[in-house]
């Protein structure tokens, strides 16, 4: 008899889970959206928390290669543009942390994972930005690849993620265009400038293509993400589509893509590109890229340097609150 009261509770819990799962499945089948207070499978919550926070970390770390060039921008106009872009990336990070938080993990916890080196972020930001032309190549290729990746995410099944992506995609198009313009100006400049532009494109081409993630036959989580309507297209599909777009755009720049195998395959209607170095990709993700240590160190330093601002803001809020209460008491 003693065990009896436990029975209904357990049965009730699984009953609730069953009903929750059924409702969840129905919403996914209808291609509708899951909202934060809805029941959702633990694996769905975990996958999204990981994906959205990694995405947020990428935006935050992604500020660094470009921020390094703000003081060296060739004109006041370019400096203002670059600052606006870097500020946007900070905003993107914050939109995404907000979305991730709705799944139950506080922002401070996510941030700490990044600072501790336990979280992943996009491998592309572990490559150095060596010349001013890199600002062009990053905007055109890196933000371009990000857009190709992110547009389908606007329809991700998790409501807050999709809404953050809509906001981000609206802002990204300026990022890609300003990068394209930098390259266009350089390629129409002196021979040295054109060479610099070509060199930047040569270095960022392959890493940008790797931003879409490993090939489909080596991407074990993709299938589940697609079943959950988080992901809408496979890595390879998005990658070949992107290659097709830049293959045309590069002609306008008067530059070339460093890919001898690049061609449109009439039969499949798809773009073929060269084999990418996936060992390099894995190494960079695992922390052995050219700038991993530097990027993390800089992030930790920035966080530590901002401590006094956070403390001052808290102290000010506390004091202002007290003054308000005193005033109210005196009246």
């Amino acid at each position, binding site marked *: 008899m003693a065990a009896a009261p436990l029975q209904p509770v357990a049965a009730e819990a699984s009953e609730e889970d069953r009903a929750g799962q059924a409702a969840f499945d129905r919403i996914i089948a209808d291609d509708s959206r899951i909202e934060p207070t809805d029941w959702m499978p633990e694996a769905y919550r975990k996958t999204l928390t990981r994906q959205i926070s990694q995405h947020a970390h990428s935006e935050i770390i992604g500020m660094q290669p470009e921020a390094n060039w703000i003081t060296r921008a060739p004109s006041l106009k370019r400096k203002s543009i670059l600052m606006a872009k870097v500020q946007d990336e900070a905003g993107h990070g914050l939109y995404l942390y907000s979305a991730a938080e709705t799944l139950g993990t506080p922002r401070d916890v996510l941030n700490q994972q990044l600072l501790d080196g336990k979280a992943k972020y996009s491998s592309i930001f572990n490559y150095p930005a060596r010349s001013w032309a890199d600002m062009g190549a990053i905007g055109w290729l890196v933000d371009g690849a990000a857009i190709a990746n992110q547009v389908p995410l606007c329809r991700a099944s998790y409501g807050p993620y999709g809404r953050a992506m809509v906001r981000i995609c609206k802002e990204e198009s300026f990022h890609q265009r300003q990068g394209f313009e930098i390259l266009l100006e350089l390629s129409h400049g002196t021979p040295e400038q054109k060479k610099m532009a070509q060199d930047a494109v040569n270095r960022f081409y392959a890493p940008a293509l790797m931003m879409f993630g490993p090939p489909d036959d080596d991407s074990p989580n993709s299938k589940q993400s697609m079943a959950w309507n988080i992901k809408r297209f496979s890595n390879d599909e998005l990658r070949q589509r992107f290659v097709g777009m830049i293959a045309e755009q590069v002609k306008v720049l008067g530059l070339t893509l460093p890919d001898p195998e690049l061609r449109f395959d009439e039969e499949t209607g798809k773009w073929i590109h060269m084999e990418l170095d996936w060992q390099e990709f894995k190494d960079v993700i695992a922390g052995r890229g050219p700038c991993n240590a530097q990027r993390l160190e800089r992030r930790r330093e920035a966080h530590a340097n901002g401590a006094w601002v956070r403390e001052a803001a808290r102290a000010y*809020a506390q004091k202002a609150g007290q003054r308000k209460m005193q005033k109210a008491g005196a009246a």
Partner: protein
Amino acid sequence: MSNQPMGNQTNIWPLWEVFVRSSRGLSHVHAGSLHAPDAEMALRNARDLYTRRNEGVSIWVVPSEAITASDPDAKGSFFESPQGKDYRHATYYTKSEGVKHL
């Protein structure tokens, strides 16, 4: 302070929900959320975060915990009453079709 272990709840600024009025004559619409130590700084942060391109002429910030939401699981019963009450819609009245200005 900055290197405190993760999950130190006392170290987390409260969460605010941000609502933006995009132009005069329109309602404030939920834009997202942010952390800030008080309402005044929440407003400033919201301006920097959600209106970098003239997206708004007015902002509201509301402590997230001050919002009371309907229970998503009670969807069935809570929003049941309009069901079967088609007569609340103009489209229910078909006999007057073709009559002008009605």
